[in-house]
């Protein structure tokens, strides 16, 4: 009798211990985000005291001579991201529609693993292919002085965003209840009309979320842009900027952090750029998750 009691007690203590550690693991994500934010701010905030704000948001980035204007870098990131969206959004969404709504089963089973393979390709591999194939091709075809331009970066980053967009948008389309499609078909619509009149509008928020998350990935992408965009911190002024070398925030951090002295103004401003990047991606992800949670609420409403 006593023995089983003891067993029960040790069981209880064991259970308690496990439960506590699981609970703590659950909380750990919050801790990590806070720690990341803390270290970025800790090393990035000093910039504000070392370099006048007006200079930080000026147009010349040339750290060797103490020009620390990050505007060209921010705009560089935006140009490449915009270009990548122009590639990835149409191709990504339409491929998702094809896979979810039109493709026969065997085609699906070939296409989905291929998209996953693209998602798994390390970004250096895409950068490498960019240097060897895409950039010489664009240089020759468009008669540019160099193939290492924002356009090259955009095309390759499009390739990075496509898997994200395809898989999330496809999920959203698959989540549309089949009764919607059947209802539309029963009313005499063709499959094509059903897709664009019923299914895609019903999955709209999920598709929007897919686009946001895809865009979020391109803003933060580092190695590919560093390898193929030429890394010239020029201020993009017009549409022509697509055909010129450019430099993004991510590439700047990656290529310069290795060579700066710890604690110098240059070191601090690289962390400051990381804070800016952090805020950009945070914003994009907040918007995406907002869209996502609205979608869940609507589904709940439909079911109740």
């Amino acid at each position, binding site marked *: 009798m006593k023995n089983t009691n003891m067993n029960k007690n040790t069981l209880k203590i064991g259970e308690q211990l496990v439960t506590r550690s699981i609970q703590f693991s659950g909380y750990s994500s919050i801790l990590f985000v806070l720690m990341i934010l803390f270290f970025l701010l800790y090393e990035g905030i000093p910039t504000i005291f070392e370099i006048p704000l007006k200079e930080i948001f000026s147009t010349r980035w040339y750290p060797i001579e103490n020009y620390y204007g990050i505007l060209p870098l921010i705009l560089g990131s935006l140009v490449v991201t915009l270009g990548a969206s122009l590639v990835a959004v149409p191709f990504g969404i339409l491929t998702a529609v094809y896979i979810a709504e039109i493709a026969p089963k065997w085609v699906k089973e070939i296409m989905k693993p291929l998209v996953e393979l693209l998602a798994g390709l390390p970004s250096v*591999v895409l950068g490498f292919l960019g240097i060897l194939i895409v950039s010489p091709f664009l240089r020759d075809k468009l008669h540019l002085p160099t193939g290492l331009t924002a356009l090259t970066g955009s095309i390759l980053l499009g390739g990075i965003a496509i898997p994200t967009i395809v898989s999330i948008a496809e999920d959203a389309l698959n989540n549309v209840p089949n009764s919607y499609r059947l209802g539309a078909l029963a009313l005499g619509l063709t499959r094509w009309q059903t897709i664009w009149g019923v299914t895609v509008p019903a999955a709209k928020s999920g598709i929007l979320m897919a686009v946001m998350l895809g865009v979020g990935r391109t803003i933060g992408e580092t190695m590919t842009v560093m*390898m193929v965009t030429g890394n010239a911190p020029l201020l993009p002024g017009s549409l022509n900027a697509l055909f010129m070398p450019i430099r993004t925030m991510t590439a700047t951090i990656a290529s310069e952090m290795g060579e700066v002295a710890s604690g110098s103004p240059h070191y601090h401003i690289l962390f400051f750029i990381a804070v800016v990047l952090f805020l950009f991606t945070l914003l994009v992800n907040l918007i995406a998750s907002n869209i996502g949670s609205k979608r869940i609420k609507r589904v709940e409403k439909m079911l109740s």
Partner: protein
Amino acid sequence: MQQLKEDNLKKQLRIEKIGFTVLTILAIATVLPIIAVVIYIVYLGAPAISWDFIFSMPRDGMKSGGIWPAIVGTFYLTIGTAIFSVPLGIAAAIYLSEYAPNNKLTQTIRLAIINLAGIPSVVYGLFGLGLFVVFLNFGTSILSASLTLAIMTLPVIISTTEEAIRAVPQSFRVVSISLGATKWQTIRRVVLPQAIPGILTGVVLGLERAAGETAPILFTGAAFFLPRLPNSPLDATMALPYHLFVISTQVPGMPIQIQYGTVLVLLVFVLLMNIIVTIIRSRARAKRQW
């Protein structure tokens, strides 16, 4: 009237046919480059692959010899990442799916995970530099790089694991609890075994990403060139993706053969991971009991 309706239907069907064709072509145009890239890399990389290329040290400033230290380095980094991120990620997923109440704190955790998933890899690199390399004084090492990669991988592992655990039917838990099992016993003996294929998929996908990353290890553990294998977790190491970056952009006059060979090794690694995931998934689907 009847005639008009029929004409309209015919027109719609024609539109449908054209639309489907266009979408098919677009989807193929999206997927075809992926196949082309694989064939291209295999075709040009295969001649470079030899026993010597895989298993020997780089020589002549990396312009000849092999990539063994980079392969071993990537292996160590992947293992190191797994040691930290797999237990933590699975535990966090168990908490979210089985324990977490529906309150503000849980919402904050979810927001944090979404946020972690969105942070750019190079920012993880800076964080790792600030915390592990400098503040905790681990130096530029396998340890620092693994910890950085582990935090980066966490959201992938948590979200796939949580999904896998949630997919286990509620009735399994109810029966187990009603038989007198405690909550943890239920999770360990009933829920987790059912969720293992899904969890494994998440772990493999997470580690695949970690192994292919370059930016987070740039300042936390990657060595430009190291003519020997690392001896301890506190050594810096070469790594395949970083090595590819180095030989394709930083070293002038690099023989193209070696570059293609290195890309092929990376590609084979990714393909292997993907095949493993596919096998786990299809076997799980065949064996599923609910």
